[in-house]
């Protein structure tokens, strides 16, 4: 902010042109110029997020199917969530996915970053191959997943057959479907955590590890006792970011299992989507969305406070 204040309209520093103009007119002109620059984007952003967010809250206090008249029901939609068994199942599935995905993606990102942080031949090729899946859309990843993990002719079962392991049902098995979705999410998103860790690794001065090595630490000790603690803020940041994206899982479920088999992969957002657009319970869906928002906020605040207290703060 200070930079902007310091640069206040340079026209003011040009007495010849402004001396005669009254101060109020000048202020009005500055306001007009300022809002002229920021108004279009501000209108789009607030109109498509703040405004609908408030609207969603109003909807969450109503019973409405989108056509008839909306009926005010107070907090009934919120209290209905308490006894909604399907929602509870969706919460469980989401928690399972988050518990699988977040630690795996943080560890994988760290591992890949350490491996890729070395100037050897072919490193550019390795890096490109590992990062490329980042451009794959949920739709593309969904099609690839159903093909690779097809129980009859999929590549994965074929590899298992060749090495003599039993065939699996994968996406058709309620116990395995979420694992498959986790694996393919990791494939598509490993690049993100890796790039973040890679950038952080390159910001750590080489002297730190060198000093540890001179003091007699081996490579492994130097990494865990010197490098890894330096990465703590990045780890906190990446873990929060991945948690928030994990509890919002929808796209890949839609493009692989559509919540099946036997609703085993129905996540909170998938449930919210089907409540809104299949069952047309717009009020209830909005209440679920607000519940999810509240949980996301609480997690973010809790982790931020915790990391502040333990002084690894990423924020």
């Amino acid at each position, binding site marked *: 902010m200070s930079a902007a204040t310091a640069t206040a309209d340079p026209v003011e520093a040009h007495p010849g042109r402004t001396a005669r103009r009254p101060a109020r007119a000048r202020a009005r002109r500055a306001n007009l110029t300022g809002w002229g620059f920021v108004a279009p984007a501000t209108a789009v952003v607030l109109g498509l997020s703040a405004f609908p967010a408030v*609207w*969603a809250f109003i909807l969450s206090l109503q019973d409405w199917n989108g056509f008839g008249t909306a009926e005010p029901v107070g907090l009934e939609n919120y209290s209905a969530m308490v006894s909604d068994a399907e929602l509870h199942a969706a919460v469980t599935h989401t928690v399972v996915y988050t518990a699988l995905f977040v630690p795996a993606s943080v560890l994988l990102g760290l591992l890949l970053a350490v491996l890729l942080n070395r100037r050897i031949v072919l490193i550019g090729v390795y890096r490109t191959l590992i990062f490329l899946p980042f451009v794959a859309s949920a739709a593309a990843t969904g099609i690839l997943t159903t093909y690779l993990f097809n129980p009859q002719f999929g590549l994965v079962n074929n590899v298992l057959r060749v090495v003599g392991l039993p065939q699996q049902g994968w996406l058709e098995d309620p116990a395995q479907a979420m694992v498959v979705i986790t694996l393919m999410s990791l494939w598509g998103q490993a690049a993100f955590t890796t790039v973040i860790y890679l950038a952080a690794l390159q910001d750590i001065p080489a002297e730190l590890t060198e000093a540890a090595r001179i003091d007699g630490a081996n490579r492994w000790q130097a990494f865990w006792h010197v490098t890894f603690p330096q990465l703590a803020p990045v780890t906190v940041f990446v873990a929060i970011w991945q948690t928030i994206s994990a509890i919002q899982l929808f796209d890949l479920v839609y493009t692989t299992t559509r919540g099946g088999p036997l609703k085993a992969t129905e996540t909170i957002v998938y449930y919210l989507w089907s409540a809104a657009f299949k069952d047309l319970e717009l009020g209830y869906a909005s209440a679920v969305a607000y519940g999810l928002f509240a949980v996301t906020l609480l997690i973010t605040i809790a982790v931020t406070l915790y990391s502040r207290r333990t002084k690894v703060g990423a924020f």
Partner: protein
Amino acid sequence: MALLLRDPVAPVVDGPPARRTRPRSLWWHLLLAPVALLFATPFVQMFLTSLTPKEDINTFPPRFFPSSVTLEGYAKLFEQSDILRWMGNTVLVSAVAIVSHLILCSLAGYGFARLTFKGRDVGFFMIVGTIMIPTQLLMVPTYILFSRLGIIDTLAAAMVPWLASAFGIFLMRQFFLSLPPELEEAAIVDGCTRLQAFWRIILPLARPALATLAIFTLLGSWNDLVWPLIAINDPQQFTLQLGITNFQGARRTDWSLLMAGNVVATLPLIAFFLVAQRQFLATMTFSGIKG
């Protein structure tokens, strides 16, 4: 939040610190090569399957490489679907999104960084606050809003959410704050208006930030599924992502055709990534976006 982590245009993976290559790097290859191959496998299968004759897919044991190469899948794709139309739709949506994003967000970013006016700080605070609002909270009211505006089942429904973003405004503001203010002051003293100074002096300097923003918008709008999914039912108005997703439900058995569609939808981004890898990585560090 990712926003606070790094400079928007800092070089990211310019190369690790120089180190002498020792024979030990053989171990590194033994670790990295299989991992890299594993990551490449799904895409390799996608390309190979799109060129596989139908008979091959049901043979047992399944084969990784097709017995012969055929373009049947692509021929059927272009005959039996509106893939070209979907491609055109997606290109149009992404083009509008990128142009609009670059213009609106750089104007606003500049205004918030450099101009003094009433309500500036409150406005900026509200915009940054919206980053916390999750997409799914907006699905229902946005759908209703779109239907009141009469843009359900039109491409506008896929474009409007991408016209500008809080992220874009934030990114451009951070960049403009890093430029020395003397630049445009000199231009204004020389008689340029604010807008002229912005357009002629400032914007050309912002190319790296604009590249980051353009890639962010391209990835997001090209791969977007949620907004087209809730707002578009008319196959004529499908985007590529919506088209191939619908395909998957309808033609699960015709894999060469499905994979051909997948190649057509993904190849442009793959090619672009290969050309502009460095900018992609910068965008990734800064935003963490994934469709």
